[in-house]
Structure formats: C-alpha cells, structure tokens
C-alpha cells in the first residue's frame, strides 16, 4: 500500500505537474508519459524529502528537472506507458471557450521558448518572486530578474507577430 502522505501530496499539488506537462509537451500521450515520469521521480525522491523545503518548491524542482531533460523522448521515442485515459486526464490549455484565444496564443508563444525559458516563465506565471525563482532554479535573484525580462521581451515579440498574422 502506498504512503497516504504521498498520495495526498500528489493530489494537493497535481496542478504543478499538469502545468509542467502542458508547457513541455504538445502531444496528449507525451503529456501523460511525462506526468508519470514526474510522479515516479517524486516517489523515488520522497524518502529524502524532510519538510526542510516547501513542498511546492520540492515538487517544482523535481518536475522541472524531469521535464527539462525529457527533450529526447518526444522527438524520437514513442510514449511507452500504459496508464488508461480514464485514470487521469490533463486539462487542455486551450480548451476553455471563454479564454480560448488568449490561451491558444499563450500556448503557441511558449512553444517557441527553450526548455530553460519555459521553466522560468512557468514560475513567473505562477507569480513566484524573483527570490523564489532563483531558489528553485539555482540561480541568483538578479539573474532570475534578467532572464525574466529577456523572456518577456521575446514572448511579447512572438505574441505581436502572431497577432499580426491573425489579422
């Protein structure tokens, strides 16, 4: 039987994993594959987690480390997991009709970012402070600020181009 604390923790913070999967994989099957890999790495690291860091920080680090280095899989290796769709479903970023246009634009813009930029912009969108972003990513607060500004400029450029294309 699995540790109840672990299951509760996964469910409490499943949003973090869903969002990471949404940003790093386009295909639904690969998203699920990544989700499972992240849960597996969380389970493996769970004995080392001693509540010294915030749970969310711990989860962000593991989820992002797994996602950042999962680049090879989507390109060359088909997803191999067999968990059925009924067991869990990752909500699609662009499926809500109310904000469909905004989400679609955001999704397309983020797709063009690098693995590292995706991690930083995710933390920015989650309204983490520069201090927290620095702590999670292992960079200084100043470096986090500089990177966020660069990514914002890049994203705004992409969004403008996309908007012009739509007109």
């Amino acid at each position, binding site marked *: 039987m699995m540790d109840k604390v672990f299951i509760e923790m996964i469910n409490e913070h499943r949003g973090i994993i869903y969002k990471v999967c949404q940003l790093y994989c386009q295909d639904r099957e690969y998203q699920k594959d990544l989700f499972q890999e992240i849960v597996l790495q969380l389970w493996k690291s769970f004995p080392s987690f001693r509540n010294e860091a915030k749970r969310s920080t711990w989860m962000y680090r*593991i989820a992002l480390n797994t996602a950042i280095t999962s680049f090879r899989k989507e390109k060359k290796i088909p997803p191999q997991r067999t968990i059925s769709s009924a067991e869990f479903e990752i909500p699609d970023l662009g499926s*809500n009709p109310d904000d469909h246009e*905004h989400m679609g634009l955001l999704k397309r813009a983020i797709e063009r970012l690098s693995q590292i930029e995706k991690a930083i912009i995710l933390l920015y969108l989650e309204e983490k402070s520069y201090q927290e972003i620095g702590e999670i990513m292992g960079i200084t607060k100043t470096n986090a600020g500089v990177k966020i500004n660069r990514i914002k400029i890049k994203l705004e450029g992409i969004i403008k181009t996309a908007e012009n294309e739509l007109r």
Partner: protein
Amino acid sequence: MNLDELKGAWNAYGDRVKTTADIEEGAIANMVREKSGSVVSRIQKSYIYGICMAGFYALCFVALILGNAFDYTYFLQFIPLLLMLTCFIVVLVLLLYARAGLKRTDLYLQSPQIYLDEVIKAYCKPQRLLFSLVVLIFVSSSILIPLTFLPRKLEHEDVWHSLAQVFLPLVIIAAVYLAAKRMGYLNKKQWYGFKTNLEELNELKRLASELKD
C-alpha cells in the same frame, strides 16, 4: 494584448486544474511501478552494462593469470595481463562509485543548475572511461601481449624469424591504426558515443550554459 492579459488566462487555467478530480491511489501506484525512461535511468543502464563488461573481463584475466594459459615462464611476461586486469578492476570500481552517486535519491531535488551539471558529469564519465579502456585494450592486445611470446619463439627459432613473427603483425596493426586515424575514424568524439548520445550530451551542455548565462 500583453503578457499581463495572458497571465489572467494562465490563472484561469490554474482554476480549471483545481476543479479536476483527484487521481486515485491505484493510478498513482501504477505510475510508480513503471520503468523510468529518464536520462538518468538511461545513464544508469549504461553503467550497469559497463560494470558487467568490466567484471567479466576482470574474471577472464584472473583465470588467464592463475591458470597460466599462455605457459609463461618469466614474471615479466605476466605484466601485460596484470596491467589489463588492474585497469578492468579500476574501471569496475569507478563505475560502481559513479552509479552509487547517481542512485542518490536527492539528485532530482537539486536545483536545475546543479542537476544538469551532475547529469553531464555522469554522462561524460563512463564515455571517457570507455575510450581509455578501448585504447588500453588496443595497446595491450596488439603490442604488449604479442611481445610476451617472443622468449618462447627465441628458444625454438632463429632470431630474425622470431622477430618477424612478432613484429610483422605489429607493423600491420600500426598501418591500420594510422590509416584509420588519417581517415578520421579515430576522432575522439566518435568514440565518445553514438551520434544520438552525443547530440543529447550537447543539448544538456547547452541547457546548463543557458542557465548560467
């Protein structure tokens, strides 16, 4: 439309995620039973392969030395075999040590910057060892071991004939080596891994340098 408007859309997605149903215990249990397909687990597999190979060859050399398979009469003749045995044992110990380092449960707990550095180190180490091992095997098996048969040949045949028998294969091997080198087959990067592995390593290095930039 600016980034702050998109932030609103992102928050709406966050709210939608909160309304999804909890994942059942059985589904989570299934996920943790799956085999990992991560970069780290692939590196661990390559370590296991290296450990098995080094262990197998170390045992073979122990058997060759203890059984005196080549009927050596002088201690000096055993030196190439002892040298190869030592190298395989060193490789075995280093790989076991490196694998233990990768099995650390807190590896994924590190920040992406430290994590990437650790993965890159883990990636390069066995490849360098493999390269050194191939060079060592090549030198020992093609140069040193044939030389150990020289004393026996000298006992039964004349000097020039014995020398020719030992050194002619060496000359051929040297010619093949030089030709391969000239044609670029001994490029260190080619030895460091197959093309895909090299691409993956370069990608990891690029990510690490992007984070440090």
